[in-house]
């Protein structure tokens, strides 16, 4: 049995979000699935609803529409009947050739990964601060730990998320709220499949989700899998003059 009774997963139609939603639902948690593609969400909800006590609820939403967030958040909480766990698992990572600059694509990354996250997590944090319980999970990335040659804006968006979540954690901890920053390495999802080359230490979305749910017992930063923690420690400490010369 899950300790969670009610959860919202933003970005539940695929990848880590979908895996988290599936595991939460199968553990008896009532889940709200939020994404653009409701056809996909409905398939997941039907599948889960046949086994779980409660069929997950489905909500159509594009995180680019930040103005819709407050109203939708209130509606979801009401329809769920409560909220313990809020997961923001939406993110885009356009695969661009090295050395290419594409401002339109980069701004879209910022809109989705940054503005979308802020719009939702602000709502969740405001609510949890008032209700003095709840856990927020944000899916960052190891890519946020260092400014690397490839995908500068994606990496920066994840670095933003980490600092932002840390601030939210420090702001809400005194009200009993937990904030978990998840930093996965490569996870086998549609997002990474776009890269088209083998990735190091690739894990399945299911394994990632299981690790993330275990991490919600505490708050703080969690690397998924844990081996990324020492690896990223080393990478964070590579001197700048070396970083300029290597391709990682």
């Amino acid at each position: 049995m899950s300790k969670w009774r009610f959860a919202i997963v933003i970005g539940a139609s695929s990848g880590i979000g979908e895996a988290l939603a599936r595991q939460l639902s199968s553990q008896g948690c009532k889940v709200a699935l939020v994404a653009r593609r409701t056809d996909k969400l409905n398939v997941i909800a039907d599948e889960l609803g046949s086994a779980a006590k409660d069929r997950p609820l489905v909500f159509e939403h594009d995180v680019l529409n930040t103005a819709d967030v407050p109203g939708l958040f209130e509606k979801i909480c009401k329809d769920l009947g409560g909220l313990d766990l809020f997961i923001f698992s939406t993110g885009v990572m356009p695969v661009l050739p090295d050395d290419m600059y594409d401002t339109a694509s980069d701004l879209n990354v910022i809109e989705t990964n940054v503005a979308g996250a802020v719009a939702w997590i602000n709502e969740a944090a405001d609510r949890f601060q008032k209700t003095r319980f709840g856990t927020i999970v944000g899916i960052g990335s190891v890519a946020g730990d260092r400014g690397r040659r490839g995908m500068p804006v994606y990496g920066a968006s994840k670095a933003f998320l980490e600092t932002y979540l840390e601030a939210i954690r420090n702001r809400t901890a005194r009200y009993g709220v937990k904030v978990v920053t998840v930093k996965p390495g490569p996870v086998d999802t549609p997002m990474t499949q776009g890269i088209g080359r083998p990735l190091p230490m690739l894990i399945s979305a299911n394994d990632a989700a299981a690790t993330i749910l275990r991490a919600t017992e505490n708050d703080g930063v969690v690397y998924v899998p844990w081996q990324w923690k020492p690896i990223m420690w080393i990478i964070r400490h590579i001197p700048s003059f070396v970083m300029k010369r290597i391709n990682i």
Partner: protein
Amino acid sequence: MSLELSSKSHRELLSSSYLERVESWGMSIYAASYVYRPSCITDLKNIFKLAKETGRSVALRGAGCSYGDASLNSENITLDLTRFNRILDWDPYSGIIAVEPGVTLEQLWKKVIGDGWWPPVVSGTMYVTMGGAVGMNYHGKNNFKLGPIGEHVLEFDILLPTGETITCTRKNETDLFYSAIGGFGMLGCFTRIVLQMHPVETGQVEVTAFATDSFQHIYEEFEQRAEAADYLVGWIDCFAAGSQLGRGQVHAARYLSAHEVYLPEQTLRIENQDLPDTLFGIVPKSIMWRFMKLAANPLGMRIINSSKYALGRTIGNNKTMNQSLTGFSFLLDYMPGWKRVYSPGGLIQYQSFIPNENAVKCFEQQLMICQKRGIVPWLGVFKKHRKDDFLMSHAVDGYSLALDFPVNDSNREQLKSLTDELNSLVIQSHGRFYFAKDCTLTKDIAAKFLGEKTLRCFARLKKKCDPQNILQTDLSRRLFGDWTQFADDLTGSRI
């Protein structure tokens, strides 16, 4: 602050400005709810209007002293009535008092005692509101003698979610009178309650304490003493097993008459009733729970219970003393903040009411089940009851045992399966339950103890008073869901 619904949009009223954590008294359950604290009837009506227009339900809440989810309403509206706290009228000659629902028991006794009156039925804490007391039809240590508080209500005004206010007495709107009392806030909101106080000559009771060594023994003592005593309460050491099972201590009390007390008028003064805030005149009681917390584990509690029994059996056995009415009545207030001993997980209280013929056996089995499963209540309280005429009554001609269980993350599941087993046992013993304490019942168990006829009768009144089902709580949804499921084909009423 008036809510000024006309000037505030639904968005503003259902914003996080009004969102709050609402907790059960036992602290083990909590919910997020939009909480409003109106101070006038107009705003009460406005809240009902807001609920209807936004499709949300409304829970009525007083001081929040129900142990479980009786005044919780997740993601919906909570009407906190504590600002309706005026005493509207008091007649010291007849002992009749009219109060608003948010008036606390503390306000009540402080108002009446100086004139030689005392609330006929009091709970273990004086911080409950009278609206909550009547809504739950609470009982005290004298339930066998004076019944629940409902028997002392002469009249009340109730505001229905439809906007209509009805005055109910035993003769006028009889059905609503006997159903709204104990109707756990499902039919309407009391706006005025008229109560008959109980005359007392002094502010003291004579308390006799003695030890008992089994449920059979305590039962016999209660039966024997019920005639002479005004109050009877038993404490049970739930850790004792085998031949010691059900051992405990009884406190029997009777009101003292004027000739038995030196300067009886002095005993009726509030300053001679107030609970002291220090132990031995030195140690502030408000810090005591921190020391008690050191014993907040099964071993510590076993030692405390055994020591209490050992003292009660030896130096405290058959001791008689005079005690102030408040000192005897409000045991839960004696140690401020004591419930924090159970923090952070909180506690649940499991209270079942068992008819005379099955009581001893059922309570023995209850404790044996707890001990076998390794979840032993830290406190057990034994009381005697009598039947009453209220529709949703919890009382029986028999006894109740209230068991305090600590809750933590690791025992929630086992506690659930334990209470499921206890619930079945209570149903087999033709027992009943009390909504102010409950957080373990299921729809099935509630239907069994209340009976189909009672539920249909209540559902019919619910439909009449609250056709849009505005008044709901987490408890009402858990136990009854949608009231329309109870077919409305009953003609005539139970009463």
